[in-house]
C-alpha cells in the first residue's frame, strides 16, 4: 500500500483570545489517500474548519499549532515557511470557501483572477493564461464562458461565483482539494449542481477531496469516508452507510437524530431535550370557515421593474401552519415581508381578520391595531437584535409599545413569562446579544415576537443559521408554542424537510409565482409539478439503504 497523500497526526491548535488560550483542536488525527473523498462533519466550533485551515497554513495570527504533524506527500508541512508553502498552495493543494462571492476579489474580473492563479505557478503570458482561464470556465460548465471572463463577481450569481472559485482551485491540477462548506447559502438545486460538478471533476482528475460540511446528507452522498468532529476531536470515522446507519458514538447518534430527513418528525429530532414529553393538546384542530389571513392577487414590482411576487393568492386559517418554499429569488421572503407590512405591495389585497390591511402603508402600519397581531421572527438572530439592548429590553420593547404594559413589575413578570415559554433561563435576561449563543439568540427573537400575543407569526428562515442540534430544539419549541397558543404560522424556509415537518400545508414558489400547493405530506411524497419534483430530488439525504446502494454502484463502476 502506498503512503497516504495527507496525514494529520495528533494535531493541536490553540487560539489566544481575550479570555485566554482556547484549545480549538485537541489532538486530531486523520489521513487521506490520493483520489479519496473524505467528509468532515460537525457543528460550529467543532474545529472542522480549523483543521482545514491548519493544513493550508491559513490560520489567522491568533491561532497556533502547538502539537502534532501534518504531512503532505511525505513532506512535513506543519510549520512550513512561506517560501516552501507558496509553490504548494494552489498547485498541489487548494481550497474552496464558503460564501463564494466574498471569496473573490470584487474589483477584478474573474478571468484575471483565474489567470493570477495560473501565472503564480506557471510561466505563462497574459494571453496564454486567458486562454487557459477560458478552458477552465468551460470545464466548470459556465454558460457563455467567453463573456464571463470579463465579468466582475457582483455580476454573477452565487452558484456561478462558486464555479469560478472551483475553476481557480483546480486551475493547476492540485492533488488535494479542500472544500469548506462549499454550498452553504446556495439553493438546493444549485447545491446539487455544484456538488455534482465537484464530484465529477475530482473523480476525473484523480484529486483527493476533503469536504467540510454541517450537512450530514451532503457528506453521506458525496464522500467515501466521513469523520465526525466534536469540540476539537474526531469522535467517529467510518464509511457513510455504517456511520449514519449505525452510529456508535453518542454525539454521532445525537447529530444523526437531529438531522431532518424525509421520514423524521419534529418529535423524533430531539433525543433528550428536556421539553415536556407529552405535547399539549392543540387548541383548535378544526378549520373554521373564516380564514385569518387571505391573500389575493398579491403583486410586488420593484423599482427596477422586476416582478418579485406575481399574482399570489392563498389563505391561512387560525392556528394553521403554512410553509413557503422555493429557491432564492422565488419571492418567498418578499411575501413574508408584504404580509408583515414591512414592504408595500403593488397590487392585490392582504386580508387579515376580514379587513384589508394592505390599505395601510407599511410606514403607518405600526399605528394599526393589527400590528400586534402579526409579528415576525427573522433569519439572522444576531443581526436582528439591537446590540445595545439586553435580552430583557428586547422582549420588553414590544410589550411596552404594542401591549401597553407600563408598570415595571408587571413588565418584568410578563417578560419572564415569555422567556420561560421559549425555554430561556431568566438569568440570561440581563445579557446582551453578543453574550448569548446562537440558540439563545433565536429564543430571544422568538420571545420578542410572541411577547405581544400575536395571532400570526411569520417565520423567515428561523433556523437557517443554526446548527442541526440547535435547530432541532428550536423547531421543537416552535411546534410546542403553536400547540399551546393556537398561533398561525407562515413558515418560510429553503429546507424542505423542515417545512414538511412544521407545516400542514406547503406552497412551492418559483420566480414569484405559485407552482404548486397542497397538504405537505402529499406534496412531498408525490409532487405534481416538475419544479417541485426537482426541488425535492435535490435534497441531500443519507438514507442508509440509499447510501449502501450508491456505494455498491460506485464499486462496480470503478
Amino acid at each position, binding site marked *: 500500500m502506498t503512503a497516504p497523500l495527507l496525514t494529520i497526526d495528533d494535531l493541536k491548535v490553540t487560539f489566544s483570545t481575550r479570555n485566554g488560550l482556547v484549545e480549538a483542536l485537541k489532538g486530531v488525527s486523520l489521513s487521506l489517500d490520493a483520489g479519496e473523498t473524505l467528509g468532515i462533519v460537525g457543528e460550529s466550533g467543532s474545529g472542522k474548519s480549523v483543521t482545514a485551515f491548519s493544513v*493550508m497554513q*491559513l490560520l*489567522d495570527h491568533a491561532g497556533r499549532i502547538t502539537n502534532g504533524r501534518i504531512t503532505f506527500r511525505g513532506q512535513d508541512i506543519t510549520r512550513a515557511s*512561506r517560501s516552501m*508553502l*507558496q*509553490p*504548494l*498552495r*494552489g*498547485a498541489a493543494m*487548494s*481550497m474552496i*470557501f464558503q*460564501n463564494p462571492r*466574498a*471569496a*473573490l*476579489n*470584487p*474589483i*477584478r474580473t474573474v478571468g484575471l483572477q483565474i489567470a*493570477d*492563479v495560473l501565472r*503564480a*505557478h506557471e510561466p505563462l503570458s497574459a494571453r496564454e493564461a486567458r486562454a487557459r482561464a477560458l478552458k477552465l470556465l468551460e470545464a466548470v460548465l459556465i454558460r457563455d464562458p467567453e463573456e464571463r471572463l470579463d465579468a*466582475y463577481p*457582483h*455580476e454573477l450569481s452565487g452558484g456561478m461565483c462558486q464555479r469560478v*472559485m472551483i475553476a*481557480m*482551485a483546480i*486551475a493547476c491540477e492540485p492533488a488535494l482539494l479542500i472544500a469548506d462548506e462549499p454550498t452553504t447559502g446556495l439553493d438546493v438545486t444549485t447545491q446539487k449542481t455544484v456538488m455534482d460538478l465537484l464530484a465529477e471533476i475530482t473523480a476525473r482528475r484523480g484529486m483527493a477531496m476533503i469536504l467540510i460540511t454541517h450537512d450530514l446528507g451532503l457528506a453521506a452522498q458525496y464522500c467515501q469516508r466521513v469523520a465526525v468532529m466534536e469540540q476539537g476531536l474526531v469522535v467517529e470515522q467510518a464509511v457513510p452507510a455504517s456511520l449514519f446507519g449505525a452510529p456508535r458514538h453518542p454525539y454521532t447518534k445525537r447529530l444523526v437524530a437531529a438531522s431532518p430527513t424525509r421520514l423524521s418528525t419534529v418529535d423524533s429530532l430531539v433525543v433528550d431535550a428536556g421539553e415536556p414529553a407529552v405535547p399539549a393538546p392543540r387548541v383548535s384542530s378544526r378549520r373554521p370557515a373564516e380564514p385569518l389571513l387571505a391573500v389575493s392577487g398579491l403583486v410586488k414590482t420593484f423599482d427596477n421593474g422586476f416582478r418579485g411576487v406575481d399574482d399570489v393568492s392563498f389563505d391561512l386559517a387560525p392556528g394553521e401552519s403554512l410553509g413557503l418554499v422555493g429557491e432564492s429569488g422565488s419571492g418567498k421572503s418578499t411575501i413574508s415581508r408584504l404580509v408583515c407590512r414591512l414592504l408595500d405591495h403593488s397590487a392585490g389585497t392582504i386580508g387579515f381578520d376580514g379587513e384589508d390591511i394592505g390599505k395601510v402603508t407599511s410606514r403607518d402600519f405600526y399605528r394599526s391595531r393589527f400590528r400586534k397581531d402579526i409579528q415576525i421572527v427573522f433569519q439572522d438572530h444576531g443581526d436582528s437584535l439591537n446590540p445595545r439592548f439586553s435580552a430583557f429590553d428586547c422582549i420588553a420593547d414590544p410589550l411596552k409599545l404594542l401591549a401597553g404594559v407600563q408598570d415595571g413589575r408587571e413588565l418584568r413578570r410578563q417578560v419572564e413569562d415569555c422567556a420561560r415559554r421559549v425555554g430561556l433561563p431568566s438569568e440570561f435576561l440581563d445579557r446582551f446579544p453578543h453574550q448569548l449563543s446562537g440558540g439563545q439568540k433565536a429564543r430571544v427573537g422568538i420571545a420578542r415576537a410572541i411577547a405581544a400575543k400575536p395571532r400570526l407569526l411569520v417565520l423567515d428562515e428561523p433556523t437557517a443559521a443554526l446548527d442541526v442540534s440547535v435547530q432541532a430544539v428550536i423547531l421543537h419549541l416552535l411546534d410546542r408554542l403553536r400547540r399551546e397558543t393556537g398561533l398561525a404560522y407562515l413558515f418560510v424556509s429553503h429546507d424542505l424537510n423542515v417545512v414538511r415537518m412544521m407545516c400542514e400545508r406547503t406552497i412551492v414558489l418559483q420566480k414569484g409565482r405559485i407552482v404548486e400547493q397542497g397538504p405537505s405530506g402529499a406534496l412531498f411524497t408525490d409532487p405534481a409539478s416538475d419544479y417541485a419534483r426537482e426541488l425535492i430530488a435535490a435534497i441531500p439525504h443519507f438514507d442508509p439503504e440509499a447510501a449502501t446502494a450508491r456505494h455498491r454502484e460506485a464499486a462496480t463502476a470503478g
Partner: protein
Amino acid sequence: MSLAAGIARRAGRRALSSVPALFGVIVFTFLLMRVLPGDPAVFFASGPNAGQAEIQMIREQMGLDKPIPQQLLLYLKDIATGNLGRSMNTGQPVVTDLINRLPASLELTFTALLFALSLALPLGILAALKPNSLIDHGVRFLCSLGVCVPTFVSGLLLIYAFYYILGIAPDPTGRLDVFAAQPPVVTGFMLIDAAIAGEWESWRAAASQLVLPAATMALFVLAPLARMTRAAMLAVMTSDFVRTGEALGLSRRRVVLVYALRNALLPVITIMGIVFSTMLGANVLVEKVFSWPGVASYALDALLTSDYAPVQGFVLLMAFIFVLVNLTIDVLYGLADPRVSIE
C-alpha cells in the same frame, strides 16, 4: 462604453444637484458679510478725518445705500455676467485677482497632497501589515504630531531648521527667488510654466521655494490619509478574497498590492477629496507664514478690511472648487470600483 456612460451620467447628475448648494452659498455669504460689524465705507475713506459727506459718497458709490434685497439682486446679476466686483484693497477686479492668485494656491495644495500621499500610503500599508509593531507605533506618533502641531508652528519650525540653521532652503518669501528669471505665464503654475519654457534654473528655484510650505501642509494632512490607509488595509487583509489569494499560492507582493491595496484605496479616495478641500481652506496660515501669494491670504486681508467683494468671490470660488473636487472623486471612484457604476 457603458462604464464611461454610467460615470458621465453620475457626474452630470451630481453637477446639476450642486447648483442649489452653490446658490445657497452665494446668498449666505452675501448676508453674512452684511451683518458683520464694520462699515467698509469708513475703511476706504481717505483718512481718519474724512468728512461725513465723503463717507456717504463712497457708500453710494459701492451701492451700500440701497436696501439689502436690491443689493443681493444686483450682486446676483453681476455674478451671472462674470463680474465679482472690485477689490478696494488692490483696486483690481476680483476675478483678475483670483485668476492671478489661484494657481499659486493650487500648486501648493497639489504638491502637498502629492507629498502627503507618497508618504501616507507606504506608511499606512507598513503599519497595517505589522499591526502593533514598532513601525505601527512610529507611524501613529508621526500622525499625532502632524495633527496636533498647528501649521504655523510646524512651518516656522521647518523654516528655523532648514533655512536658519542648516541653510539648505531658500528664504521663505513667495513663489520664486527674486534673482531667478520669471518664466512666461502660461498656466500660472510656476513649475509647469518653467518646464514649458525650458528654464530649468527657474524650475529648480521655484521647486525649492515650494518644498517647505508643501511639506508643512503635507504633515498636517498626513494623519487622516495614513490612518485611513491603515484601517482600510487592516480590514481588507482579513477579508475572504485575500485569504483566497493566499490559499491559491499568489505571491505576497501580488496579494498585498493587487488584491489588498486596490480595494483598500477605495475609502482612501473619498478621504482624499475631503483632505484636498480642507487643505485649500487651511492654506491661509501656511500662505501667511511663507508669504505665499495665494487666494487664501488674499481673502484674509480682504476680510480684515471689510472688503466685501473679494471675500464673497473667495467663498464662491471655494464652493465651486469643492463641487469640482467631489465630481472628480466620483469619477475616480467609478473607475476604481466596478460595483458603483451599475447602481
